[in-house]
């Protein structure tokens, strides 16, 4: 962990990883999309609209996972004052907000043909994911609210840790309040309840989303590090004048 505290070292490793990660991600997207659209059967009740699942479910998983990562970065930042955690948290939050928005939008599009409604306030999963989206917005707003970037990053880290209370609510909302969303059907006691022909594209897409997240995180962290370097160089130049 301390090994990555040097930004130059982090950049060297990240730059070496990025081409391979991008290739793997592209491959997973190609295979996943092919299975999702052509090689998997339509649902016997929902017809072809079930294919929305292959975008919706991985996006929702990544929305939760990114928030968990954000909380880990927050802990690293507050407890060990890890310099890279600040950069990574700032880079990860907008990506997570994007995944959450995709999950909400595709869920809405899927809900109309299957449940007959775009949005249901009574469904605990929908509302708790909306709250997750608000936490991302709050995190981004707080990060940018201070003239001192470090102060903003630390305040946002406290918020990220406070918002962790929402994660179990999102995860278990389908078991605590049984409304429109079905209960967990993949990781459950007694094995997956989903047919392999649908599980394959789902897992391929989940892998692709994870790879996409890592690629974006590296790209954004690289841009953020370059921005910081530029700023300190500008300050140095201004001092010299």
């Amino acid at each position, binding site marked *: 962990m301390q090994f990555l505290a040097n930004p130059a070292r982090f950049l060297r490793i990240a730059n070496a990883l990025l081409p391979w990660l991008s290739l793997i991600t592209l491959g997973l997207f190609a295979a996943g999309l092919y299975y999702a659209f052509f090689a998997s059967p339509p649902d016997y009740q929902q017809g072809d609209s079930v294919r929305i699942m292959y975008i919706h479910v991985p996006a929702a998983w990544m929305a939760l996972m990114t928030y968990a990562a954000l909380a880990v970065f927050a802990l690293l930042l*507050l407890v060990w004052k890890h310099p890279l955690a600040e950069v990574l948290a700032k880079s990860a939050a907008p990506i997570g907000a994007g995944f959450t928005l995709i999950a909400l939008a595709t869920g809405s599009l899927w809900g109309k043909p299957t449940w007959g409604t775009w949005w249901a306030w009574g469904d605990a999963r929908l*509302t708790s994911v909306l*709250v997750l989206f*608000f*936490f991302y*917005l*709050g995190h981004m*707003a*707080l990060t940018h*609210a*201070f*003239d001192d970037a*470090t*102060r*903003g990053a*630390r*305040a946002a880290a*406290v*918020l990220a*840790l*406070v*918002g962790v*209370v*929402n994660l179990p609510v999102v995860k278990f909302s389908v078991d605590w309040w049984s409304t429109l969303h079905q209960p967990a059907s993949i990781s459950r006691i007694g094995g997956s309840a989903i047919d392999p022909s649908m599980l394959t594209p789902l897992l391929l897409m989940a892998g692709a989303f994870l790879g996409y997240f890592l690629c974006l995180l590296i790209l954004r962290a690289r841009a953020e590090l370059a921005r910081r370097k530029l700023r300190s160089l500008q300050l140095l130049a201004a001092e010299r004048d």
Partner: protein
Amino acid sequence: MNGFALLLARDLRLALRRPGDAGVAVAFFVVAACLFPFGVGAEPQLLARIAPGVLWAVALLASLLPLERLFLAEAEDGALDRLALSPHGLMSLVLAKACAQGLIVGLPLLIASPLVALLLNMDARGYGALLAALVLGMPTLLLIGTVAAALSTGARRGGMLLALLALPLDLPVLIFGAGAVQAALVGDPVAAYLQVLAGLLLGALVLTPIAGAAALKLALE
């Protein structure tokens, strides 16, 4: 006298010397609630139907209003540094601030709430539940708001930021607070809602001083 009581007495004394501040929050509460009859129409049944939710949402916003400057004066004149160095610690400061807000703002809002319920044509059966739910829910809202105020101390546009940070965390209180009043109106048992509100309050009492103290420590750096 321990640190918590000293800090609480200090805040109350300051509030007594400027009694207008609490009045503004109550005035906001009444005026904002009066927007709804104009907006949704004056039909009494409709107003009575939405009254619990409107009351809670408006009370929530009114409780956030005075929090914007909660730590600002102390942060600017350096008192916060002295308080952080004092043996009482920042946690008792957070608790004392929230407690003072409860007495300065929460209590007047509580007293004004039956009047607003009357304006919204709420049925008399809901009054007891409304007051009980506010007594249990308002301190939680203020504790959460205190953390948000500590986080946004020194930020640009602190007030709007504070609302953005506090509102998602306030949702459970809103759900169960309005739920208690709704249950009382239709004759269902209220106890479960109040117990959840009490549980949220106990959880907030434990967790918010920790988060608030951590946030204040950042404001000092």
